[in-house]
């Protein structure tokens, strides 16, 4: 009898649809996130099949078409973005460069996020001595100018895609490490962690099942912001001549190459710059959507929007 009033509000909830349908519906509710996802899929597609399709065109020089301006349709559709200082079509080059750019950025971000988060979880949950040791390691990396580190490493190892990923990953580790540790230190004092300890949960279980899911949204947001940073850092290395070397191309390198022609032929740097902006913007929009969609207590915001649209 006494349980009746407390029950009513709980049973009023509607039946919940299956998980994939639910996510599609939530994606539909946020049109910006949907557009961002489609754009990112396009970029991935470019990276996968671009070099095979347009690899040759992108490298073929055409001195008569040097710095050809964009939107001159009589040259053919490949030239609609214009051409660079050696007359190579920018459109083709951007598509081909997507592969290197994505490999470097995604590789560096994933590697640094993975290592940084793991070390951060250990530093936050393990004994104080281990935690201190890991933090001092992070301090060492942070106090070392990242460009100097890159110059030394790449000078010794020689510039290549793998080595650029390695250097960029190392310099970005402390960002994830410090954020993760700070969050873990707070979350480990929460009551649901005590509850898990009372049940006898192992440290591994507590960290992976209870703490990591709470930290993850923050880390995802940082990772997407870092994506843009890494793309630009890569272009800086390329500009110094120790990053990706021509004839290999990346968006960053294209911006760097266009820099000297900026006053006469703005499109050389503009199009690859736009590609970087759109990619990072899409990542940000998508991560923002994911942060809400993955949080059971926030999810209703998207689901409500979906319902009013329908």
């Amino acid at each position, binding site marked *: 009898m*006494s*349980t009746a*009033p*407390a*029950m009513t*509000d*709980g*049973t009023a*909830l509607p039946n*919940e649809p299956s998980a994939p349908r639910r996510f599609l519906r939530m994606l539909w509710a946020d049109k910006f996130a949907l557009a961002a996802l489609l754009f990112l899929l396009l970029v991935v597609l470019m990276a996968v099949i671009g070099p095979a399709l347009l690899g040759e065109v992108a490298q073929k020089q055409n001195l008569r078409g040097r710095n050809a301006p964009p939107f001159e349709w009589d040259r053919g559709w490949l030239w609609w973005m214009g051409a660079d200082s050696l007359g190579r079509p920018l459109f083709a080059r951007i598509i081909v460069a997507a592969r290197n750019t994505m490999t470097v950025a995604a590789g560096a971000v994933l590697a640094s996020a993975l290592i940084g988060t793991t070390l951060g979880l250990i530093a936050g949950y393990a004994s104080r001595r281990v935690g201190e040791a890991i933090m001092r390691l992070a301090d060492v990396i942070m106090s070392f100018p990242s460009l100097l580190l890159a110059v030394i490493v790449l000078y010794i190892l020689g510039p290549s895609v793998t080595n650029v990923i390695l250097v960029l990953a190392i310099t970005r580790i402390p960002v994830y490490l410090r954020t993760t540790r700070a969050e873990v230190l707070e979350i480990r004092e*929460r*009551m*649901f962690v*005590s*509850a*898990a*300890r*009372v*049940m*006898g*949960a*192992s440290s591994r*279980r507590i960290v992976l*099942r*209870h703490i990591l*899911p*709470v930290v993850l949204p923050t880390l995802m947001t940082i990772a997407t912001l870092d994506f843009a940073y890494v793309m630009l850092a890569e272009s800086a290395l390329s500009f110094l001549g120790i990053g990706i070397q021509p004839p290999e191309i990346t968006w960053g390198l294209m911006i760097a190459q266009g820099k000297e022609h900026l006053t006469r032929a703005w499109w050389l740097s503009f199009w690859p710059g736009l590609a970087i902006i759109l990619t990072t913007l899409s990542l940000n929009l998508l991560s923002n959507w994911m942060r809400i969609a993955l*949080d*059971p*207590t926030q999810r*209703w*915001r998207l689901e*409500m929007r979906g319902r009013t649209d329908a």
Partner: protein
Amino acid sequence: MPDHLLEVRNLSVEFHTAAGVVKAVRNVSWHVDRGETLAILGESGSGKSVSTAAILDLIDMPPGRITSGEIRFDGRDLLRLGAAERRDINGRRIAMIFQDPLSHLNPVYTVGWQIVETMTAHGQSRARAQAEALRLVTRVGIPDPAAALRKYPHEFSGGQRQRLMIAMALAMKPDVLIADEPTTALDVTVQAEVLALLKELQRETGMGVVIITHDLGVVAEIADRVVVMNSGEIVEAGNTREVYRSPQHPYTRKLIGAAPGKGDMPEPLPRAEPVLKVRDVVKTYGTFAALAGVGFDLMPGETLAVVGESGSGKSTLARILLRLDEPDAGEALWKGRDLFRLPPAELFALRRDLQMVFQDPTQSLNPRMTVFQLISEAWAIHPEILPKARWRARVAELLAQVGLKPEHASRYPHQFSGGQRQRIAIARALALEPELIICDEAVSALDVSVQAQVIELLTKLRREMGIAFIFIAHDLPVVRDFADHVMVMQKGRVVEYGTVRQVFEAPREPYTQALLAAGLDPDPEVQAARRAERVAIRA
């Protein structure tokens, strides 16, 4: 129509949320006269604070919207005044004190500065304000008032902070004082003092007092009249005594019926071999002795209530028994084995026998796990209890046992009410089939009627499954109908141990007597008699 000091007429407030329009209060009317105390009684979510927030212009608009009504003060409708005029009235003519004084005192300024500021903000000279501040702080009973003015908020105890808030509210000699759950965060003995102070000050100044509370005891102690609110509407209003004696509305009757401490006291179990023997447990944090040699016996299936005010060490004791904290000394023999000296592997196996239900289920349930995941985690950790194929069926069984439905298994904690969440936490504890459950203030955060339901559930579980309980509470009436033995703690020591009947009917120690006397009875006549007694003692 006679003019009242402050009158709310037909007030309706809506909030626009993503879940649609929520009508926070509907057609609420009440008034308060000079020298009178009105209590607004209601449980969480009843809308009891909304009308006073409207008086002080504290409702954010949007999302809030006042759809109808007026607030008459001084012959004017406050809702039609401009922002500058409202500010002039707020604080000067109508003042407010809050539940948690620490979050409403600025931590970077001294208390004296803050009291003076409320006065200078309304145009008093600095010198006069300072003299007045000293008088006020003396009046509200802060020891060494001159030095107190130069201290920061964190240097005072909870009760003293609430006294300071009262001093600040009274600085401009307001006509109306609104108190929103002013004593909820305080210990019972401190609560009684603060309420007595409010009553005295009201007698001196003749102000009207509006007190918002969920506690029938507070109403009985201080209010002349009461309005009872339930889901945004006033269900009953009237003289405090009459409402208590002959409640008209079913909700009021339910609320009064749910007040703890009126049932029969249970007869203690016959003495048997204790399952848990705790001896001389000591725990110090720095120089602060949280536990200074605590010991007790617990028999199988027995319920031991541990009662004490904040800082008495009762929660530390619970954490140490479950090895969430390590003790400095002492032993706890669980079926002959010392809990404090078990190697990790044996401790892990023993986790099954000892479980805990925490104070606030909102925090003790991981918000990112479904009810099924929360409960079945017990078997993921201890796979020997139940094969994976049977998890679903057993979760459904446990949910039914605590009064929830099997379909609830796929939901997340935030989709439940506070009482339901605590049921989930209890189901999780039961999943391990424990022999002892430690409840750390497990019902303190819940509304009275929900509290009664959870206690009923625990009693049922105890009868059916023979589980022993250590029930930690700060409030004596809660444990009266439920416990076999009561242990009263103060400053890390056990001051009194005995059966419920001994402790409630013939308390030996002065501290227990004070604790019992300070507890507020929901019956206004009992409270009036107690007040008369206190006055007689003082005279």
